């Protein structure tokens, strides 16, 4: 560690005012913070007593994503790693450009966005589309709103939505048929056998053909990391236990989706099937719970979750779209600030009347 510290101390003058690489000060600081805890203390109140700062918080999310990521690697092969690297590079470039122009630090939030985004893409998507998508997501979904903490929409979902609308054929045809351990060393290209997702089959009326166990373990076609419900439950459970993800949001999304499914389905098996299908689990645990874009109040989180759960089921069963988690979360994101606003006002009025 001492050697790394020395390297950083040696490089520091280059990035300070007057140094040759001043423009890239943000990069230096981000790397410095990545290797060492930031030494700066908050100069004035509020001082948080929680040992979790933003970076540790984001690290927890990455730990929570790990099981789903490993399952995705097992099922999709090493191409996913390439997609993640491309996503980090392209999105990071946009992030660095904005940090340099605004003369601010790079935020750790991108560590999560850059990882989640390739995880919700079809496994055989061309790499340049990953780059275009993440650049658009970071630019429009986050930086135009003012950067981390000010974005209305989840950048990873903005990016995915952009790709789904811009390149519908590549997105719907890029799903990789599930593979076994042999996949670990196999590069899945565009020419790979593309598989129809269970929900896609359901649209054609043959939905019960996919066994429930396969749905639960993830031996189905789908976006890279969304298929294995088991892995998502392990990682998501970890996030719930560490309270990084709020249980109200997750419970509201899954609960309302279950209620909706009970109305449409004949048997309990079908209900569980619906819950395991598509991106519902992944969306509920990792994307709807994003602290920035979800509602802030406790009751607001429940309402926000219910909106997402209900809309997902409505889109799946009553529209031409195969899956609606993406649109549902975007709709929830739009509603979240309004829900909070209304709840604050109601609360405030009640306090006024009482006091």
């Amino acid at each position, binding site marked *: 560690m001492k050697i790394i510290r020395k390297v950083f101390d040696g490089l520091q003058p280059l990035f300070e005012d007057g140094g040759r690489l001043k423009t890239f000060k943000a990069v230096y600081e981000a790397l410095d913070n990545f290797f060492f805890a930031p030494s700066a203390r908050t100069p004035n109140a509020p001082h948080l007593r929680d040992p979790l700062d933003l970076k540790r918080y984001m690290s927890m999310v990455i730990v929570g994503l790990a099981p789903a990521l490993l399952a995705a690697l097992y099922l999709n092969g090493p191409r996913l790693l390439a997609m993640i690297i491309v996503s980090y590079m392209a999105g990071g470039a946009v992030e660095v450009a904005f940090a340099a122009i605004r003369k601010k630090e790079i935020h750790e939030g991108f560590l999560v966005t850059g990882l989640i985004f390739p995880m919700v893409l079809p496994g055989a998507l061309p790499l340049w589309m990953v780059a275009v998508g993440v650049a658009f997501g970071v630019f*429009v979904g986050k930086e135009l709103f003012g950067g981390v903490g000010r974005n209305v929409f989840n950048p990873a979902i903005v990016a995915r939505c*952009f790709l789904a*609308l811009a390149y519908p054929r*590549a997105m719907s045809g890029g799903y990789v048929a599930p593979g076994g351990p042999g996949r670990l060393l196999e590069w899945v290209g565009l020419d790979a056998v593309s598989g129809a997702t269970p929900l896609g089959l359901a649209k054609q009326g043959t939905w019960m053909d996919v066994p429930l166990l396969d749905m639960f373990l993830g031996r189905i076609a789908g976006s890279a990391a969304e298929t294995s419900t088991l892995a998502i439950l392990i990682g998501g459970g970890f996030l719930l236990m560490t309270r990084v993800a709020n249980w109200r949001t997750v419970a509201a999304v899954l609960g309302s989706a279950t209620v909706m499914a009970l109305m449409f389905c004949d048997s309990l098996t079908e209900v569980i099937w619906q819950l395991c299908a598509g991106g519902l689990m992944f969306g509920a645990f990792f994307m709807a719970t994003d602290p920035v874009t979800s509602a802030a109040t406790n009751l607001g989180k429940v309402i926000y979750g219910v909106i997402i759960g209900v809309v997902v089921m409505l889109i799946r069963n009553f529209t031409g779209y195969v899956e609606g988690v993406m649109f549902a979360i975007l709709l929830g994101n739009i509603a979240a600030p309004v829900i909070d606003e209304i709840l604050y006002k109601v609360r405030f009025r009640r306090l006024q009347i009482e006091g």
Partner: protein
Amino acid sequence: MADMKQPACVSCGGAGLCGGKALATLKDGSWTTNPLAVQMLGICSALAVTNRLENSLVMGAALIFVCVGSNLIVSLLRKAIPTRIRMIVEVAVIATFVIVFDQFLKAFYWDMSKQLGPYVGLIITNCIVMGRAEAFALQNPPLLSMIDGLANGIGYAVILAIIGFFRELLGAGEVMGFRLLSDGWYTPNQLMILAPGAFFALGIVIAIFNHFKGPDPEEKKQ
């Protein structure tokens, strides 16, 4: 807006052609108070017809024609129009010009007319045309009003053309129907043809426009 010390326009008997206000009016309408980028008027048509450059150009031409024509007539009638029914008179004048252009398209460019659909007819309700008639032509002499209509029309048409150019280029790989980006390596970005793409394109163009224009001088003072 109107400086009273300046000599009046030749069309109303004063000295000098528009009293030197022509250039200022032209710059105001097309740049400083650009109807699309600064006043945010006429957004609806700007989003709807800009999926191809050709459509954008025709729409821009239509708006220039209607705006110049209606401004001229409203300005000529400005002393005869009773204040209480001025809006109705303005709409009647505007509608006349719109119908003339619409019929012209239908007679000679049927395909284009079909592509633009209802949007030519909807120029009647376009805030830019109505706004210029109401805010400018009613108070100013005919020649100056025509220049104002021309300036606003150009301000609208140029931005429409820019948006149309990029949407068609990125969305279909073509410009005016000619393939610029070949099939071999370019996958058309279908979002740019769809309505959401129009919002993004318009937003980015407006941002760049306002970056070059700089802040409003009136805002600067405050």
